[in-house]
């Protein structure tokens, strides 16, 4: 299912990103980072807060330019993919437009791309994310989880080649979050888009991804890559297995090293 022989979907070669701060100092968010996401691969990016995960995603989306190194998406510059409307993205803050209904929010990418709205596709996605019956609702009438589902439906509506998810469930409670993970797994399994997911949650990364990449604290750098051994389709029950728990512990240890005094 994962084809890593062709040009990778996302390719980072020795990327460094520094920001110039207003006081004249520079802040290095990412340093000499190399990673790649294969075609049809789901990669999760874990790392402590402020280590540059969002910055990495924004580099892929062409919202920032690298200070040094190269970012290639489908072997081209990110801007080209953006211009061709081949990139789907969902942010932590859902970024829905409050004056549009659920349906209009999901249709928006068609209008911006200047393409005729494919009504069946929009309706299909609304059903897929479990929002049938809420087509005419406005974002403020929805719960936090429902808003994130709208944002995810919107990111998928143009059938993107690359999907970028920046902590889409970060603001949700643990129970809703787990439920959303199960739904995202089901949705993703139907399309198998090359996906890069940023998250804080180790369980989320392991349950969803083919591969988990761990970044160090700022400035961010790849410190660990883990191939997730669970076969697809994944039933939520894998999260109860001993192997899952052991991998969670391992990754948590990489993220926040204790001083050897484990339990």
């Amino acid at each position, binding site marked *: 299912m994962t084809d890593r022989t062709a040009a990778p979907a996302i390719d980072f070669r020795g990327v460094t990103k520094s920001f110039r701060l207003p006081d004249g100092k520079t802040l290095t968010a990412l340093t000499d980072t190399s990673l790649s996401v294969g075609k049809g691969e789901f990669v999760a990016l874990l790392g402590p807060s402020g280590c540059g995960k969002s910055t990495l995603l*924004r580099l892929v*989306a*062409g*919202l920032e330019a690298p200070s040094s190194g190269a970012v290639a998406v489908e072997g081209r510059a990110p801007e080209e993919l*953006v*211009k*061709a*409307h081949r*990139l789907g*993205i969902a*942010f*932590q*803050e*859902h*970024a*829905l*437009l*409050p*004056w549009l*209904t659920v349906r209009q929010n999901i249709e*928006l*990418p068609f*209008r*911006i*791309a200047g393409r005729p709205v494919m009504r069946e596709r929009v309706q299909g996605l609304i059903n897929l994310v479990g929002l049938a*019956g*809420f*087509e*005419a*609702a*406005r974002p*403020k*009438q929805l719960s936090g989880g429902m808003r994130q589902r709208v944002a995810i439906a919107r990111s998928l509506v143009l059938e993107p080649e690359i999907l970028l998810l920046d902590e889409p469930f970060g603001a949700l409670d643990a129970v809703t979050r787990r439920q959303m993970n199960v739904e995202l797994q089901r949705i993703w399994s139907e399309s198998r888009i090359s996906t890069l997911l940023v998250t804080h949650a180790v369980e989320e990364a392991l349950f969803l991804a083919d591969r988990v990449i761990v970044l160090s604290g700022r400035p961010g750098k790849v410190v660990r890559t883990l191939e997730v051994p669970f076969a697809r389709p994944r039933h939520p029950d894998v999260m109860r297995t001993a192997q899952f728990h052991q991998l969670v512990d391992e990754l948590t240890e990489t993220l926040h090293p204790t001083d050897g005094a484990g339990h």
Partner: protein
Amino acid sequence: MSQSATANGPARPSLVGRIGRTLLNFWGIALILVLWEALVVLNDFNVIVMPRPWAVFADIWANPGLYLQNFMQTAWVAMGGLVLGMIAGTTIAVLAWSSRILNGLLTPIGLIFSSIPVVAMIPVLARMLGYGTETVLAIVAILSFFPFFVFTGSGLKLLPAGSADLFSVFGAKKHQRLFHLALPSALPNWTVALRLASANAILGAMVAEFLMGTSGLGQMLHAASQAFNTERALGASVCATIGSVTLFVLVVSLEARVRERWT
């Protein structure tokens, strides 16, 4: 669809119902009028010093044609000026938004222009446009320009969180950003400008008419006070107040509607 009730807010009272309720809020004014009437009658004041409210209403009742004609004149000029100021203020705010160079040029000019007191502008404008309706129209337009320019200008930048990045990733062009994002975002602010400008439109028209003695309620007020006809002077003011309050109530209900949908 079956749950479309979730998409509609609670039933709103009708427009007539709301105006009725607003008028009920004016019982305090009715009380003042009664006390005033009693004060004048009991103390036997000279009508030139202080007329009876009853005499003011009697004068309006006796000369409906005169009042109506002047009221329509002032109302027409006030509405026309409001619409001109609205078009100019909104257009210039959009132009300033669209380019940094235009912004650097237009914003200072707009601010300087708006800080000149109207009273100082009247003689200059009257010399340029003549002592007629055109000058009154121009003055109301200038008065209305400022709120539309300032509030639309700031509203165009009040975008929902993350939406600017979202539009970049969609590959949106400048005009798409304007029509799909910036203008809708500015609408709540724009209605605030409409409220502020409407509150001043009739007053501004009257002041101009008063100072130039051309036509309308302002001229009526001017002529009446020259002739020590205090009832008529107050009658003109009552008409202006009724016009202002009606306009204000309509605009506030529009503003509430926009706010309800936008937040």
